[in-house]
């Protein structure tokens, strides 16, 4: 039988740095988070009115610009021997790209949603 290393090892070995640190402690919870978040997303977005699909897309555009968090984590550390300046520059360019999406995504969504009106104002006349 083929021995899969991860199955052959004991829990203590897997969680030790030799196996890449915390595969079980960190990765598995993240997978749970991912699966649960996908279900929540599926259920919440399934109910979005078809009227609003374009604004929904520009809103999720802005939300996916949450990658700015990762960009800040790359651009943020003190530049030095173990964090070369060019790494920070990549992070800063990523921040610019993500900020474009945040600003334009939220603004255009708001602009579009302002246009959706009911017949209510006409009843006055």
């Amino acid at each position, binding site marked *: 039988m083929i021995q899969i290393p991860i199955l052959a090892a004991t829990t203590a070995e897997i969680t030790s740095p030799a196996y890449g640190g915390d595969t079980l402690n960190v990765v598995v919870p993240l997978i749970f988070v991912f699966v649960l978040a996908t279900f929540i997303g599926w259920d919440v*977005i399934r109910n979005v009115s078809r009227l609003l699909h*374009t604004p929904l897309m520009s809103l999720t555009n*802005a939300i996916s*610009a949450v990658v700015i968090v990762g960009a800040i984590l*790359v651009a943020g550390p003190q530049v030095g021997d173990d964090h070369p300046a060019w790494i920070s520059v990549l992070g800063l360019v990523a921040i610019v790209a993500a900020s474009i999406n945040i600003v334009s995504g939220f*603004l255009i969504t708001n602009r579009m949603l302002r246009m959706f009106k009911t017949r209510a104002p006409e009843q006055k006349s």
Partner: protein
Amino acid sequence: MSPEYRELIVQISYLIATVLFIFSLKWMNTPKTARRGVVSGVWAMTIGVGGTIIGPTIAVESLPWIALAVIVGGIIGIPLSRVPLTAVPQRTALSHAFGGLAAALVGTAKYYLWLDGELTTFRTFALSAEVLLGGLTFTGSLMAAGKLQEIIPTRPITYRGQNIINFIILGAAIGCGIALIINPEWSFLFPILLVLSLAFGIMLVLPIGGADMPTVIALLNSYAGLSAVAMGFVLENKLLVIAGALDGASGLILSIIMCKAMNRSFRNVLFGAFGKVSTADVAGEQKPVKSATPRDAADMMEQAERVVIIPGYGMAVAQAQHRVRELYDQLTKREISVKFAIHPVAGRMPGHMNVLLAEADIPYEDLVEMDEINRDMAQVDVVLVIGANDVVNPAAKSNPNSPIYGMPVIDADKARAVLAVKRSMNPGFAGIENELYTLEKTLMVFGDAKAVVGDMAKALSGEGGGAH
């Protein structure tokens, strides 16, 4: 503040941001609460970013640079939020490209940062996924934006063996990723992976035509979300995983809705090159069509009790939505019922028609979905088709040889009379002949949609004024 304390603040801010992001999407369900959703999203982003900056790894010296980058992005972002609504599809595609770019850059930075022995199997796996998804989203979205802006030909660009070449590029990229996972130190493979991902994005969108853009944009939306998820796995960051998963789910749902609305599979959209297969069908005999002037059309609608307007991409191109509003006003003033029938894939992105009509101040209660309007189409006196073609083609129901056979369409042919506004008798995007135009009860009104609909509204208002 101790690093532990700062990390705790980070995690609390991520928790709050997560909840606010979910509410943001939940409030998008109806137009009544949707604007609250935007506010919630802005707060979520602010709190998430604020928390990240407080984090223990961020040096004070970096903060001015980060602030500068945010300001530069904001300055570029503001004009992008003020584009005309007809340009919203290309703006959306462009911002998917920025999202993909950011993911690919962060992935690249992290790979080289960890190259000195910190690359675990899982990290390399997540990094490869992030770079692959980010890279192909970047170039694929740029291609889509280029096609929508008509910088690149909108027609599908195809050649022999296209799918095989695409599969080879994707296979080579995945192969590079696997080789990197097995041996993370083979750093020469990383740039190759990056280049292959970028190339695959271009090749993937090249053969996709304009009418398939709603699906492709939705799919790229999903990829942008998934690249954020991959980044979350790389950085072991829950906020990225959750927000990315929400986006991934959103893009996936929209893609499925678009595919269903065209009765096609993902595989068919991505590898089918729509426009090409259908050209053989055009060579049928040309039946005569009857044409009418805008005034004739206006008279017909004036006699009607129920009018349904079916808008398509042609209305967007001609920017005719405000003229449509004038026509709507003239008809509703006469107590004629006017509804708009919206096909899910009308236009170039999901919901495109709804936004354009909302811009023209048409109340959203009068925008009706296809399934709902089809139920009482037989009671409609006049249908006015403005720049829509395939979505009203009865061949989709009756002709098994038609390339769009099986696609759900709006049953314009069931109405008592049909008026179709069109620039000329040239077949639409897919080159498919439309039997609707040659029906006994159909009158064609040739001309630019904006001018023609404007003339109709003028004809009605002129008469209204003359009567008093």
